[in-house]
């Protein structure tokens, strides 16, 4: 049986400046948006410590809230943020650049 011919063989890949500029602006928005969420998530903890006494005394399943959030919760937050940002950024590039159908077998993004 003859294997299917890959239509992309012999085709030179290229992006036009206009396409790339559109992707660049979208990616910049994504990066800044996710970075704002990242900074907000980190800053929220020390700010909460300063502005409210409740935070310092609060317990979460027997844990001091601040300790469990910084000791484990932040890593989950970073990971979730990373999965979301990588999936979105790769998806945007796939949709906005290259000929549709280039990716025969799309892989999971992250």
């Amino acid at each position, binding site marked *: 049986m003859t294997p299917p011919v890959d239509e992309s063989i012999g085709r030179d890949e290229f992006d036009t400046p206009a396409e790339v500029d559109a992707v660049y602006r979208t990616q910049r928005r994504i990066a800044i948006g996710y970075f704002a969420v990242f900074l907000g998530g980190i800053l929220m903890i020390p700010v909460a410590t300063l502005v409210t006494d409740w935070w310092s005394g609060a317990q979460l399943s027997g844990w001091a809230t601040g300790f469990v959030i910084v000791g484990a919760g932040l*890593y989950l937050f970073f990971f979730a943020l990373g999965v979301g940002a990588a999936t979105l950024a790769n998806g945007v590039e796939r949709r906005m650049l290259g000929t549709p159908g280039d990716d025969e077998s799309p892989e999971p993004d992250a």
Partner: protein
Amino acid sequence: MTIDVAALIAVMGGLLLVSLALAVRLRRASSIDFYLAGQRIGVVTNALAICGDYFSAASFLGVAAGVYVSGLDGVWYAAGFAAGFVPVLLFVAAPLRRFGQFSLPDFLGRRLRSDRVRIVAVAVVQVITLSYLVPQAVASGITWKLLVGRGPLGLDPYATGVVIATTTIAGLVAFGGMRGTTWTQALQFVFLMAVLVWLAAAVLGNGFHYTDAVAELGREPLRNPVVVDGQWQLQPEASELQPQRAARFDQPGARYSLVGQMMLLITLMLGTAGLPHVMNRYFTSPTGRETRRTTVWVLGVAGVFYTLAVMLGTAARSVISQVTTVPPWLGELTVDGVLRIPEHALLVLGRLSAGSAGLTVIAIAALVAVISTMAGLLLAAAASWGHDVFAFVVNRRATQEQVVLAGRLAVVGTAAVAAAIALRLEPTSLSALFPSAVATMVTWAFAVAGSALTPVIILSIWWRGMTASGAIAGLVTGSAIAIGLFFVALDQPGWSIASLLLTPTPIAAPCAVLVAVVVSRRTPVPDDVTQLWVRLHGTASDRTAERLARLTIRGVDDRGSVR
């Protein structure tokens, strides 16, 4: 506290054998093979190798020590290390790889069409590399002196540790190149993680209860050993947030004020994106998309690593203080159940959990962490000297063999310089140096990287108007301010803001950005900036690489089906 020397020698010998085996395979390596492992490193392997690069002794012993000595503030130290990869993912990883170059100076040189930028960046990279490399060499000497306590042929034990670590790792990197180093770093990190998992399981198996321990440690004021009139004694730590109150283990303030905590976080966070040995790894990925996936893996693995390290620091604080019959070796290391040197936390925990075998395993892991990081740093130095200086300045017509040879010589030379500096820094009093000087020098590397390289790299990726003159001005400004503030802090330790100046990135990086932008606005951008932009933010190179990979796999499948 001494360990099995034979086990240490076996590990070092094993690493050398691995490097020699790889050397046979790579004896005719091209420069792409030697510096970039052929740009074919897979996502998981590269993520593990990045972790091997990144998690030095400062992460393996230092995070547990930080938690041990300052509770929640030490937990923030770990969070800062992990947080650094979020900006890398968002702003740097994919565009950096798509430019497809050998090193950070090479990226800047090509993006801004300037060899002057390349040379200035090489100088900054060398400052960062040596700032990171020397404390690793010092740590290997101290570890050997503390744990083995003797050297061959009348050699001082500290010198023995420095010489063995630098020689072993220089040999591994010079022969194995990026490919050999990648595999050994990935394996070394798997070993480090396995040791942490084993120790955590052993501690939990012995009845340690994490939640109860944190609650119990938080009930009492946090007290640490200090020398008063020549005598060790425990003193409560005052809270930096509320000076009238004593610090507690599960609350912030034992070490940092709010501003100090933020400055440390920003320094660690921005520093990661400018660390040459970590960022050079991104050039070994096949595509920009793969670098994003790699970074997500790093974030996941780092999270597990630091969660365990934090738990073990807490366990050490709780378990060591509860030892009812204190053996003589532990009595020498503690004051009323608290370790004098917090970096001993994991080592003591290992010995309490599994005797001298446990201690040996932790000590080997600490040395593995040191040499794994040293390997990445030596490769970064090799890429800077061999590719950026030799191939671009000294001999533009150099053959591939000459460029690889230059890299190998750079590895040996840099290792020799680091060893020589480390030997001159031999501490007269271990407690006086450990942990302050080692941790301080590593923080310096992060500070210079985050103050000089990171702002310029991010501007070069995200701002079309960046110019070579702007980049040079930014690099010089960021480095000068960071180094200047650092020396002021060391010179005036009594100043109330001295500890803040040891993490100068929040001051230096904005200055670097400001100067880079002002100078760039007055100087012309490269003529072909549009083409550079398309290469930086387009995905044509990714798609080509992915198509070639599909064709290769299909070719292999077809050959397999014919057979």
